[in-house]
């Protein structure tokens, strides 16, 4: 009987696929024109991104592997199901860093040969990007909610109000930028306003609310739960997850606001997105370190 491939095996396979596709597949000429770079510059940029992406993907896969191992140790405990949900959510976020890029590279290659496919490529890319936080944050939120029920705590009134205020500001600005961009001569999202509002903006706002709420719920659990040593270690996992969720929201926010055809310079986009990915990598690393220590508590 075949053994289930390990997380490390999946990581290596996906990395090789990603690297080969990035270096071999052609890109569409309009992107090079917009970014004002040559094909060689593009390949060099991709090449310099391989190592950072390999590190970021590794930290994400390592984190979900450690969280899953910890959740497995807890399978009969009260908080076991909650950590299983959080691990599932983190797994989706980790795979969500890789799969959309691989799909996007393949679709971009098709677009390069068949320019008529460009709109379909953009629409598929956008929906795929949306699916990751929508499903991932929902799983994480189910887990953090269960943890809050276990320690009999609820989000406080003041923090909830501040959270809603921040969320409304983020949501309104995001809606404004996306609608504004969609009215450009070439609509970067290739969707009508109604489709854009109901199938992109609303689901993103929902996912971000769920994501922000789960970060708060996890922080609450880490504050209310008992155990000096347990709390120290749990705070690392919670801190890591908070960084990953916030970094992920910022990434999606900026991806939505600065579409490929935006006027932002290549180097500015490069630096912003690379910084956000690095922040997420630090979050995944912190989470992995904490999950490893939590697992040790269940082993010694």
């Amino acid at each position, binding site marked *: 009987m075949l053994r289930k491939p390990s997380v490390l095996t999946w990581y290596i396979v996906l990395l090789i696929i990603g690297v080969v596709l990035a270096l071999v597949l052609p890109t569409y000429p309009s992107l090079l024109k917009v970014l004002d770079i040559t094909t060689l510059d593009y390949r060099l940029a991709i090449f310099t991104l391989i190592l950072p992406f390999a590190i970021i993907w590794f930290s994400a896969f390592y984190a979900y592997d450690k969280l899953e191992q910890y959740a497995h140790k807890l399978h009969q405990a009260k908080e076991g199901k909650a950590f299983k949900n959080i691990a599932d959510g983190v797994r989706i976020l980790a795979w969500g860093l890789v799969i959309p890029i691989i799909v996007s590279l393949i679709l971009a290659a098709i677009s390069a040969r068949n320019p008529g496919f460009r709109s379909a490529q953009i629409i598929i890319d956008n929906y795929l990007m949306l699916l990751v936080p929508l499903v991932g944050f929902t799983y994480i939120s189910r887990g953090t909610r269960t943890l809050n029920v*276990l320690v009999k705590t609820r989000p406080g009134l003041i923090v909830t109000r501040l959270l809603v205020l921040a969320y409304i500001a983020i949501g309104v600005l995001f809606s404004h930028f996306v609608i504004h961009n969609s009215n450009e001569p070439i609509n970067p999202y290739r969707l009508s306003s109604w489709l854009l509002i109901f199938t992109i903006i609303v689901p993103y706002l929902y996912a971000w609310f769920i994501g922000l709420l789960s970060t708060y719920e996890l922080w609450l659990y880490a504050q209310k739960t008992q*155990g000096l*040593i*347990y709390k*120290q270690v749990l705070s690392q996992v919670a801190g890591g997850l908070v960084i990953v969720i916030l970094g992920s929201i910022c990434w999606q926010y900026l991806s939505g606001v600065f579409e490929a055809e935006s006027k932002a310079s290549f180097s500015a986009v490069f630096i912003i997105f690379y910084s956000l990915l690095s922040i997420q990598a630090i979050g995944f690393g912190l989470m992995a370190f904490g999950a490893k220590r939590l697992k040790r*508590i*269940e082993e*010694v």
Partner: protein
Amino acid sequence: MNEQTNLYDKVVRVTNVYLGPAADRFIGRQVRNHLHKEPDEISEKDLSNLIDWIRVAVSLLTEDSEIVEEYTEQLSLLAHVNKNRSSNPNNNEAV
């Protein structure tokens, strides 16, 4: 509740301050793996041995030696209180 079960519960209660929700499982493992008994079978005679094993295990979980010392001291107090209670059966004050 018999005396042995009571002792296990007291050890778990002290451990809860340091390991929170993992306390019950942690003590259960120490008793089963190192004392080769079921958790509800531990008695005062096992306490000193159990504390030694707990000290080793907790030292692997944290580098904060003050926490390790404080925790094992709390467990040792439990042993003293249990000893005093055994010598004075009229004293039923809970720990």
